[in-house]
């Protein structure tokens, strides 16, 4: 990918004309490929997409998200997943197939304010996304601290093949759970490590558009570790 192919675009701007496949945040009109969001356009061999600079989280099937329980009915919990949609967690997901709404007490498992690591099971924009916590590494989060970043910067926090997040985890010995919705839980036994990991995450959120970010973060992590 050449440097000239990557540039800053605003909605309505024609990115290119040609035989490309439109991907995220672009539309094809006639032969023109037009951006629908503010962001950086990227042209690959056969496709064009725009990486947004900002924006709300739009749920996608199979995404790992961090949710906060905000209420429940007798059948399901509602989780705030930092989106314009509310995550629906059915009771049967937690209680199992023998879930009985009249006898099983919902609050015995999850209360208002509890944080969960969940996966989006199903979402089609016409109904609220269905989420699940029935899997390994999913479920209630009991320790750590919640950090909020812009959902559009999550890929930057993870880095190429997870390099960025590994660098932070190695340097601070923290366990970091990243939700695709921009909520991140940092757990660390050592308070200094926790602070440093949080600082690194916030730094990535603020400077996601900068080049050499991985080096900068590494420098920050090393400089304080003395």
């Amino acid at each position, binding site marked *: 990918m050449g440097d000239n192919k990557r540039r800053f675009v605003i909605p309505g701007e024609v990115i290119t004309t040609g035989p490309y496949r439109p991907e995220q945040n672009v539309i094809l009109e006639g032969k023109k490929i037009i951006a629908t969001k503010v962001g950086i356009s990227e042209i690959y061999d056969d496709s064009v997409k725009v990486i947004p600079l900002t924006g709300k989280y739009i749920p996608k099937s199979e995404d790992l998200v961090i949710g*906060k329980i905000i209420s429940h009915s007798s059948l399901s919990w509602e989780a705030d997943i930092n989106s314009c949609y509310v995550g629906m967690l059915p009771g049967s997901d937690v209680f199992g197939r023998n879930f009985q709404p009249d006898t099983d007490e919902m609050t015995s498992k999850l209360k*208002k*304010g509890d*944080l969960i690591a969940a996966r989006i099971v199903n979402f089609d924009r016409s109904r609220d996304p269905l989420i699940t916590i029935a899997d390994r590494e999913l479920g209630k989060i009991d*320790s*750590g*601290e*919640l950090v909020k970043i812009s959902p559009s910067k999550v890929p930057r926090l993870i880095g190429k093949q997870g390099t960025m997040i590994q660098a932070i985890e190695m340097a601070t010995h923290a366990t970091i759970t990243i939700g695709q919705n921009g909520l991140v839980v940092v757990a660390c036994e050592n308070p200094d490590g926790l602070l440093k990991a949080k600082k690194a995450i916030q730094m990535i959120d603020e400077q996601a558009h900068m080049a050499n970010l991985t080096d900068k973060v590494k420098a920050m992590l090393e400089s304080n570790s003395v």
Partner: protein
Amino acid sequence: MTSTFVIDQLKRNKINDLLEKGQRYDGRRFDEPRPLVIETGVIPKADGSARVRLGDTEVVTGIKIQPDRPFPDMGDKGIFICTAEILPLAHPTAEPGPPGEDVIELARVVDRGIRESGMVDLSQLVLEKDKTVIGIFADNSVTDHDGNLFDACSCASTAAILTCKIPKWEMINDKPTLVEGQKSDPPITTIPVAVTMARIGDYILVDPNADEWACMDARITITTNSNGNICALQKGGDDGFTPEQIIQCSEIAISVGAKIRQKIEQLRQGR
């Protein structure tokens, strides 16, 4: 609207853990309010205005002064009315529409603090007894919500009233007529300062932010006047205070209030 804000359990635990170590989540002392910034004259078309930032809470207050009919039982006094509104841009959970219970309470607590302190000598605002008086209307708009709107709105209203200019009216043919170009300072007698404290467990915290607000057991807003006397008080929240805690809160309200009052006093001198 704040009632719909749910704080996550991890943060709640963290706040409680820190309190036991004598610390607050944002590093303040228990009796330390957030940094207060007051600007006045921010709305050129209003008769008086102020923008107050209390940490990340921001309130803009505008004062409108106009002749009105007096209240039937107070024909020899001017009118003072204070309202409040939380704008939808202030917080994700704030919605447009009729005010909720907490917003009504906010307006009433701010109104009561200023009214009961006798900040403005309303008897000097009479144009014609029982017929026409001057009304002072203070409208608070919350533009950023990070807890403790009581103190921010109270401070903004006080600052705006303190620096407002009252236009002059004369009764001509039984009707109040504006005299162009003549404005006077409001008849100020004292400066009320509201100090809100939250109780979390056994700890009393001054000026709780949104996180502390969401996990407090009870709160109390105490307004003091320039002499350090308590002139209004409002208790809220599900739980209560012990008598000792009330006395402790009163002392905090007086000492913290005195510092905030100094800041507001400076506005008057710079007027």
